[in-house]
């Protein structure tokens, strides 16, 4: 049998759903929390993270436990969104002066400090990087060399750089960056690594797998690098109807599977007709490894949601419950009260992927389109709004703030090593993702904008 690396995740999702009744209204709560504590560092994005009250949802941390006990002390608290709206603020204030993690500082104090109030004996978090920085072209220039060329400039180059005026240094910064962005290091080594968590390759069953080959993820990597480089539009990650061949050529026709002598070749081409292709989320590998044997490809949808919109349903992110869902079209028991809340978002998210053929055998190749397979396509939703098919799903996705934020965060985290950590960095981050339409969604232009930020080139 082929390896089934994604099935654990389905199991996890279904198992996790058993606790879902405890998660009612969590997205709402994250916002309500910040209405009570708008100045807290935990609310710098306007919405608290799940980890404010949970270790990993649905398990509550010490602070969340105290909050839960207070909420349940109200006789008519029934975990409904209305009940949270009514009692959350009052409950938060009631536990503000106690010390949930027993480290000697009240919850209120720790919230103001940005300290982790779920763990005892944690001191205050180090202060966020100062906002009082001055942009230094030399620092940005050296960093750009390292991150995009893979090595420091030479000492001699640095000496020459220092002889230039500030204006010339800025020009040199962008000139060096242009050269680095077409370097082998960036295009062949560093940039593909940014796609690993999206593509999730596995050599054991990839094109070099033995004996089973369930997909050739080199197509995925080539498409990712193509879209994220040159003058391309990053929205093509989800909307490209082409593939990139081994020599960089654009391929706009189906690529049939081919048999490999001595191996059990389940899939290794790109059989999908171009009109039904949607970039990275309909490659044969993506469908093969995520959908596998499922009738309703929940894993496929949740991975697309997580990888390209930054919304992880397993972390209670991006929940938009759809009325009358889940319908439990594949009889998995997800209508049970314990499962229904998360699946009222997840199942409608997945319907649009259902016609894409997984590892179910039959006459159709893995990753091809089977319009007659289900009746679910027209029930598809994204962000709580109906979409007619995967094409409409993608159009809505690439126009969303979540898509813009997610791609900006991908590059920001690579360049800074972490997400924004201060209000000033967050403000720069917001400015960057909001600038994407004006930059024609071009990754290189975004990188050029990023190297000019205080976050990247700021010095005390």
């Amino acid at each position, binding site marked *: 049998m082929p390896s089934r690396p994604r099935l654990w995740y389905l199991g996890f999702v279904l198992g996790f759903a058993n606790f879902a009744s405890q998660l009612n209204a969590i997205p709402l709560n994250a916002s309500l929390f910040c209405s009570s504590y708008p100045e807290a560092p935990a609310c710098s994005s306007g919405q608290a993270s799940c980890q404010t009250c949970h270790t990993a949802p649905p398990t509550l941390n010490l602070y969340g436990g105290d909050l839960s006990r207070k909420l349940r002390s109200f006789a008519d608290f029934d975990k409904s969104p209305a009940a949270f709206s009514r009692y959350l603020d009052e409950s938060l204030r009631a536990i503000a002066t106690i010390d949930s993690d027993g480290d000697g500082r009240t919850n209120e104090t720790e919230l103001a400090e940005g300290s982790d109030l779920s763990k005892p004996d944690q001191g205050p978090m180090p202060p966020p990087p100062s906002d009082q920085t001055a942009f230094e072209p030399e620092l940005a220039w050296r960093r750009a060399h390292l991150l995009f060329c893979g*090595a*420091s400039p030479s000492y001699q180059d640095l000496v020459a750089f220092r002889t230039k005026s500030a204006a010339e240094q800025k020009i040199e910064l962008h000139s060096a960056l242009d050269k680095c962005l077409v370097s082998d290091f960036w295009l062949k080594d560093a940039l593909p690594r940014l796609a690993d968590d999206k593509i999730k390759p596995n050599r054991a069953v990839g094109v070099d797998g033995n004996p089973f080959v369930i997909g050739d993820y080199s197509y995925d990597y080539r498409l990712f690098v193509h879209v994220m480089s040159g003058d391309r539009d990053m929205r093509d990650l989800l909307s490209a109807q082409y593939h990139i061949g081994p020599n960089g050529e654009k391929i706009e026709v189906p690529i049939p599977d081919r048999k490999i002598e001595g191996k059990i070749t389940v899939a290794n081409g790109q059989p999908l007709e171009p009109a039904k292709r949607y970039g990275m989320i309909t490659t044969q590998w993506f469908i093969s490894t995520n959908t596998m044997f499922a009738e309703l490809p929940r894993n496929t949808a949740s991975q697309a949601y997580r990888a390209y919109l930054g919304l992880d349903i397993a972390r209670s992110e991006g929940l938009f419950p759809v009325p009358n869902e889940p319908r439990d079209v594949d009889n998995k028991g997800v209508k049970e009260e314990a499962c229904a809340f998360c699946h009222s978002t997840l199942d409608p998210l997945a319907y649009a992927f259902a016609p894409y053929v997984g590892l179910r055998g039959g006459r159709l190749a893995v990753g091809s389109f089977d319009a007659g397979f289900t009746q679910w396509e027209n029930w598809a939703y994204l962000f709580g709004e109906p979409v007619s098919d995967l094409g409409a799903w993608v159009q809505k996705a690439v126009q969303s703030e979540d898509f813009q934020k997610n791609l900006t965060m991908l590059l920001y985290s690579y360049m800074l090593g972490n997400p924004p950590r201060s209000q000033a960095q967050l403000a720069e981050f917001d400015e960057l993702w909001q600038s994407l339409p004006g930059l024609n969604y071009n990754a290189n232009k975004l990188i050029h904008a990023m190297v000019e930020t205080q976050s990247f080139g700021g010095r005390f």
Partner: protein
Amino acid sequence: MRILFFLLGFSLSIQAAAAELIWKRSQILERDLSRALELAADELCLELGQYSCLKDVHLYALGDHDPFARVQYRSLPEPSQLTAIAFERVVLNACINRIARDGEGAAPTVFRFYPLQQKLSQLNRPAIAQQIRDLYQRFLVRDPLPAEEAALLGLANDPALGDEKASMFSQALCLAVGSQLEFLFF
């Protein structure tokens, strides 16, 4: 050891000036070390003489991941305790390999300011100072501060080194400069 702590303190105080420190992860560390010591990637460090320290054995500890063979899709978010050990081991191996090559050839590339076969007591201080400055320029792309240069010159007089060959002293010198945190964070 005192000298290493001294240099570490300097290194941190210099780097603290940047608003954010960025970890030089394995892929970049490999290239930057290759550049600094003019060694090919596969000449830097091999465990058991065959497994790449940077691409394989210490890849994860040094901040990268192997998605294909090890099915690792994310790297460490921040350095671990193993990072420091792996980093020092890689730099030391690369230094040893560079010194071995420079000791063999007629035209040494990096350790070229004094004969590596000479005894430490036979070296003159200006030559050592030149080597120190060159190593700073190679690893850290800057000149040493006077105090840093003085500390490393003092290393030549450290009784612990005795009257070893210049090659042994050069190993200590190379490690002292190359394993500074300033080379690991930028």
